[in-house]
């Protein structure tokens, strides 16, 4: 039976620093994916995730067991990603070269098509505003309800619904434009 996040947090607070690596293993890669889509490149995404884990570690004493650790972390991550995005770093292509290196099975069947799709996805996401991109990813990729999104982002539910709706409309326009070419 998998040890709960709260139990691991208690071990870390009790002095077992290495137990934190269990949380890193559990959440790191998932958060890198989410952050990469949010900020648009892997370098910034890994920096955001690293910073998120370090901030969470330092603040672990304030973590309330009643809250899901994943949600608590996601809230820190969203704030860090906003900060990085606000710094105006140049949006880069979402590392298509590494996809072929590290996901050989997925890329094996149609590597050229897959690379093209990833590039298209990355470019389309980059055309959304930061708030729309964040809301779209939380809702459709992370699968969160609007209530959960409100808790994480601090925005109202109606505003979030509007952002998701507009992001869908915009993405459909972009994708249909690509398909017509």
């Amino acid at each position, binding site marked *: 039976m998998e040890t709960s996040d709260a139990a691991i947090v208690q071990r870390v607070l009790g002095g077992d620093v290495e137990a934190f690596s269990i949380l890193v293993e559990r959440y790191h890669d998932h958060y890198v994916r989410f952050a990469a889509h949010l900020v648009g490149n892997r370098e910034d995404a890994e920096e955001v995730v690293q910073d998120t*884990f*370090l901030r969470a570690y330092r603040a672990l*004493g304030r973590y309330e067991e009643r809250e899901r650790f994943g949600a608590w972390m996601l809230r820190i991550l969203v704030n860090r990603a906003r900060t990085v995005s606000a710094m105006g770093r140049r949006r880069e292509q979402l590392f298509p070269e590494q996809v072929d290196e*590290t996901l050989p099975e997925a890329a094996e069947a149609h590597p050229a098509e897959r690379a093209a799709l990833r590039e298209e996805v990355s470019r389309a996401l980059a055309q959304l505003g930061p708030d729309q991109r964040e809301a779209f990813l939380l809702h459709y990729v992370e699968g969160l309800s609007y209530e959960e999104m409100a808790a994480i982002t601090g925005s109202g539910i109606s505003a979030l619904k509007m952002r998701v709706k507009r992001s869908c409309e915009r993405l459909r326009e972009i994708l249909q434009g690509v398909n017509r070419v």
Partner: protein
Amino acid sequence: MSDRMNARDPLAAFIAELREPVAVDPGSKRRLMDLVREAPRPMPTARIAPARPRSHAVAVIRRMRSGGPRAASFGTLATAAGIALLMALGTREASTPRSGSVRRAVIIGDSVASVASALRDTLRIVQFILTAPAASRVALTGDFNGWDTRATPLTRATDSGRWSVTLALAPGRHSYAYVVDDTQWVRDPVGTPAEPNELTPPRSVLVVEK
């Protein structure tokens, strides 16, 4: 507004692609743990809410009815209701049932306040109270304000750590939480806890009866 999406929607393939794993530097987790080992060790900190809560959220005190047009703003009603709250507590608090120092929901009356003449629906006035002496800011968030963490700030009593706000709520089941210092979500220490959810922060449930 619908979130439904059929399989032929071009967005469906787009979203499926976004859910695929991305490449991760294999050394990144090792480097992260190196930084964790160098960082100061986290220590358990005192909770903002006391272990034994001194007060709690809910006092339903007055029902408002009217047949007039819906014209009064929510804020106007809440302000007016706050005045009614003080008057009502002065007369009925002695008979309020108590458990320790927890104030439970109390229906005080059924009279019609002047401001309520602009309302068609029945509303209940609810006071939310949180004792958080170390907090700089406390806000109330819930389904009744769209989970907006800035819309409903609590006011701190001048000589204590007690924060409160009074709202007019429609009858029904409401979920809510307090947000302390803009970041920490706190469930009502003695409210009814909401059903745990994988990703939601702590919440409480309040049922406002008709």
